């Protein structure tokens, strides 16, 4: 798509380099927004176009008259601002350095508090959370989140399983109180409520940004270039780009996305279709929403790493493509005609394809003079997934039903392959068969959609037929069942009690495990279920025993697996609360399950 010619409503130069993602806009005097950014290692610049306030530690910048500089003695990792003090409406600046947080009142030139952060500082946000009445500062560290009030007292603290990369406060369960959405580098978006994680959304890459859209939707961006929108925990759409999204903002009923290379696009909220696009002159440093012109509605403020600031008003339909020109009905017809020709052209190509087929359809398979693109019409592709304990992986078997060969297979799946999301098998000419195995090694237990594109033909073909299939790997696909009776099941296990018929458990097992044969309960009388499984990753064992009295015992040395199993089972059985005992070296009352 061509770049839109839409012009920014304001444009200014800060004459300072800006560190990407360490930018905020705050009203230090309670009314006038000031762009605040890190300009290199330990330097913070504050842009105050609405009147000077050079006082205290801030010094007037030599490079720009409306910019003050603030020098710290430590690297600036994160910046945030918010009306922390309940007694004033003024924003306080929060400065995160590698090991501490400084809250600074720019207007009064006083330090609010100074707090050590032994777990590191990655992200700081301010906002309301849960039942707390005052604005909190929430800090995401390397493996934890903590919230502090305006006096520097810790309000809560919790462990997170990965490095925190993005956070927002968002009313996830629509109970009128904000939860904390945490995006981590372990590819999960977690929802924290009252110091408990109530939901976990598996994504396909480290989460870089999160942004609220409306009461029920939020947008996310990943390190692999994906952006998308979730509505009530279900993904509405996602698109992928070569660039990484630096910031997402909801502006004028569109999702504005700022990519790290300086491109900004506006997308439709429900589909992700691009409505317009602009390109900044340098790489992007930030994109924020602020009423920087004091007109009463927030503009999109885009900042480049060279210090250029561009402001765009909320997206409006008629400024979308042809700025200014009215669309005539005849133009509409012409556009429609162009579009119809596109369709016609595509259809003609497809039709030619079938027609050429029909003319040669009478030719028999035995015909020795085979054209370079021929293939028997009744060729079909079959796909199966097998366990391969020898190679410690799953084998995706792709095969045809006749003498044609699988020339190549492309497998697209996210989060499975080390080298990105495609895996290709292209056998040597001497090894071409009608059966091809593709090894799959899902590193974690999440359900994965595997898309397969197989090229089918003869070894000497010049053109191959594309067969496409999608197969879903169940969540616990990496566990293979075996029937051998086992006595000693190890001394690490979890137990809990459920009151559920074994038949329903059986359905859960069939849905979530990859069994050679579906598990069947022979008679209604069966009350017990024992399943023995082998983990293909580390050759460890997993035993699941469902006793007649409702007692369940999962024996495994992997406490994470036990947690995942319980979580999955509880969601399936719709349990809101489950008391679990864990017997391993450490004894913890681990999970209180609350499905969303």
């Amino acid at each position, binding site marked *: 798509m*061509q770049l839109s010619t839409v012009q920014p409503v304001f444009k200014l130069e800060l004459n300072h*380099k800006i560190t990407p993602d360490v930018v905020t806009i705050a009203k230090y005097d309670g009314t006038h927004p000031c762009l605040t950014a890190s300009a*290199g290692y330990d330097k913070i610049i504050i842009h105050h176009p609405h009147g000077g306030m050079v006082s205290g530690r801030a010094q007037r910048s030599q490079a720009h008259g409306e910019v003050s500089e603030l020098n710290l003695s430590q690297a600036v990792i994160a910046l945030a601002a918010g009306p922390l003090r309940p007694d004033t409406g003024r924003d306080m600046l929060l400065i995160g350095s590698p090991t501490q947080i400084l809250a600074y009142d720019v207007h009064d030139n006083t330090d609010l508090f100074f707090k050590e952060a032994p777990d590191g500082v990655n992200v700081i946000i301010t906002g309301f959370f849960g039942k707390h009445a005052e604005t909190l500062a929430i800090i995401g560290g390397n493996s934890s989140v903590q919230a502090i009030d305006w006096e520097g007292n810790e309000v809560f603290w919790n462990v997170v399983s990965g490095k925190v990369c993005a956070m927002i406060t968002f009313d996830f369960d629509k109970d009128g109180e904000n939860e904390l959405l945490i995006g981590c580098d372990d590819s999960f978006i977690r929802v924290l409520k009252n110091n408990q994680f109530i939901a976990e959304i598996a994504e396909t890459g480290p989460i870089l940004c999160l942004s609220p859209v409306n009461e029920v939707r939020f947008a996310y961006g990943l390190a692999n270039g994906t952006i998308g929108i979730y509505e009530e925990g279900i993904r509405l759409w996602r698109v992928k780009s070569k660039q990484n999204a630096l910031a997402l903002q909801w502006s004028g009923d569109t999702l504005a996305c700022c990519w790290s290379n300086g491109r900004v696009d506006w997308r439709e909220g429900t589909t992700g279709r691009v409505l317009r696009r602009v390109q900044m002159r340098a790489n992007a440093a930030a994109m924020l929403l602020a009423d920087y012109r004091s007109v009463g509605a927030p503009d999109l403020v885009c900042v480049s790493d060279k210090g250029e600031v561009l402001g765009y008003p909320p997206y409006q339909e008629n400024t979308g493509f042809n700025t200014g020109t009215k669309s*005539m009905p*005849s*133009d509409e*017809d*012409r556009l*429609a*005609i*162009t579009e*119809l*020709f596109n*369709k*016609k*052209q*595509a*259809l*003609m*190509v*497809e*039709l*030619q*394809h*079938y*027609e*050429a*087929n*029909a003319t*040669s*359809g009478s*030719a*028999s*398979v035995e*015909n020795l003079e085979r054209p*370079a*693109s*021929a*293939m*028997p*019409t*009744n*060729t079909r592709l079959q796909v199966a997934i097998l366990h391969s304990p020898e190679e410690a992986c799953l084998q995706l078997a792709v095969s045809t039903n006749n003498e044609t060969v699988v020339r*190549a297979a*492309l497998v697209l799946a996210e989060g499975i392959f080390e*080298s*990105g999301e*495609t895996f*290709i098998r*292209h056998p040597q000419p001497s*090894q071409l068969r009608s059966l091809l195995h593709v090894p799959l090694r899902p590193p974690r237990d999440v359900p994965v959609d595997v898309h397969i*594109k197989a*090229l089918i033909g003869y070894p000497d*073909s*010049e*053109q*191959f*037929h*594309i067969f*496409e299939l999608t197969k879903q790997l169940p969540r616990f696909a990496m566990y293979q069942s075996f029937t051998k009776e086992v006595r000693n099941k190890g001394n690490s296990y979890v137990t809990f009690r459920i009151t559920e018929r074994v038949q329903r458990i059986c359905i859960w097992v069939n849905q979530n495990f990859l069994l050679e044969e579906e598990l069947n309960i022979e008679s209604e009388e069966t009350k017990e279920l024992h399943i023995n499984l082998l983990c293909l990753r580390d050759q460890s064992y997993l035993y699941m025993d469902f006793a007649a009295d409702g007692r369940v015992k999962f024996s495994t040395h992997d406490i994470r697996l036990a947690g995942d199993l319980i979580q999955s089972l509880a969601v399936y059985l719709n349990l809101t609360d489950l008391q679990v005992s864990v017997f391993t070296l450490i004894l913890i009352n681990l999970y209180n399950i609350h499905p969303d």
Partner: protein
Amino acid sequence: MDYDLSRIDYGICGITYPDTLKILPPSGQKMEQKFAIGDKNGVLQCLSIKDEEPVVQFKTLPGKPITSVQLASSIGSQADKIFTASGNEVKGYTRKGKVFLSIETSLTETITSMYLHFRCIIGSDLILCSGRIVTYYRDLREYNSYVCDDRVLDIAAFASTRVRLLVLIANKGAILLENGKLISRTIISSGPSRLTVPPSTHVTDIIAFYGAGDGSIGIITYEELTLSSKCLVDGRGLGSVVCLGWYFNNGNFHLSVGRHDGSIQLYLVDMENFGEKPRLKYTYFCGEPVTSVVGGCLGTEESELLVATFSGRIFGLRSSHLVTGAKVPQDILATRRGKLEVEVARLEKQTANEREKYQRNTRSLQAGLSTPPLLDIEHELLGATNDGWQEVRITSAVPLDMLFINSNKKLEMQTDTAAVLSICSSKEAASDLLASVRCQAGTRRVWVKMREIYNLSTGSKFEGSRVLIYALPAGAPRVARLVTLKLPALPYYSSHEALEKNFEKEERVWCQLEISGNFSVAEITSWLTEALPGELPRPASNVSFTRSHTLLDTILVCQYERGHATFKSDNVSTIATIRNIVSNCSVEKSIRVEMSCDIPHNCCLESFKQLENKFKQEYKKSKDIILKNAISMLDLDSSMNEEGPILCQDYARVWDSRDSINETRFEELVDIILQWYLDWRTLSLLENFNNESTKLEAALKECKVDDIIKILSKNLS
């Protein structure tokens, strides 16, 4: 961007080759002009435009692909005869569609449809270009011909008292021919691909604009008995020029340029002073390679730009005021749209039926044979320039979803910005490479650049690499076309040198390889395709040609005939590579060959002396890059502050030129020279002392020229 033109779609035809759309001159009093277009299906259509809708004047039956369309006149009248070239045939049509001429030339063997250009008929002269040959017919009889150094790309004829031909030659530049003899030549480094003669110039002036592969536009003139060229507009990252045309509007002439990247530009040309830089007035992106852009009065009395694309879209670009001025009644447009909607709906239904039938076939027990036609995908492999990258351009008539690439050797790769390249590890063998290129929606053209990873330890450089590219379209038909490429072992020898230039007299030290055995010219030609990029001369009784290395400027002279071949080069590694390839290939074919090498003992030393300056430059550059990286870590805004310069002079120089120092070939030069030394020792049957080569490598890396010369001249006695 002064002009505001809007697109009006006229219709679709088959795949088109460059410059196969021509606008006929107006007939009689009418201003409206007709146009003719020929496509790959061999259909020539002549159309006029009424109320934005095409009206067919005549249409021929399908046949061989039409590779060129040209207009010409019978004496005294306007140029209203349409000539088409397909295969080795030339046909002439009147404007009513009657065939009045049909000849089959004797160029049977030499014409490849791709390179056939048929440009000019002056009186009863006919000039055909096919492959590397320009053939001149007078009264339909072969009059003379000229064999060029490389493929002929385009031609223009200038006729006053005598006919002079301006010929564009691939990789070389332009030459001027008269009576089958060369009178002048000029070298154009940007790789010109098309030329066009400005309208209404004096016939005596020999002047033409050219468009080049790197996107630049320039001018070729013949003044004072010398042919010269001048670049007027830089490429600036624009796609290579596919076609040129002229557009007359508002009393001004504009050069219209259609490019491979799908862009169309209009440049205002000063007709009084052609050497003036043309001014860009308009740009339009249509998303797929443009094959023709010409101006004329089609639907209205004002001139518009008519465009044809590779996939066969024909559309006009009209001034917006004409378009919005509602000259065409609204209801006509609406009926046109309605008609199309009905047609598309019908096609959709038909396609759905056929699709159903096709899928039913897959479930039937009796196996028929499904033979879909080959996808229309064209590819072009360009020889390496001095950075070693070889570029493959893939153009498709249908939007592509992805490319899947397999190579039997490890390669470095780059691709379009509109595509995502991912290299996958391969399981079968460590030496091969798998990559996928995922394209953006609607991509119809994509390029992939490949470069061999230079590695001394693997002996694999003695063979070319085989690259398989599977092109997968985004929509129907669900078939993937396989494109097989052979990357030559000596990709740098892409520059052709004229035979008449006698390199052997130059001060070079020649290594020579003599091969004799029971092989044909065709066989040795096929062996050489493993080594050399680009097209080789067609087998003849005696073949000789010269190529030069684009990085090192070394020369390779090849001469062969049945049973005997001689290769001469001042690059010992080149000789070693050819020796290995020939011996491998001959063993494969079980043909006995005898080979003897004549390697002068001072060849390494002399070759190094030739390269010494370049080597020193590259060494400096590599040091500068290290400095540049270090300086850029300092995060400076400028090399000065209030107190004066903050960098020493040397550093400031690096800082100031930081944008221009990017890549150095130093490491590659080190490897090349080291390889020379090793090959020289091998071919001279000297033992390879590990010790010596390690010392040489160390000296090369430190650029100790004296030490290098000492080591290289050690065994000279």
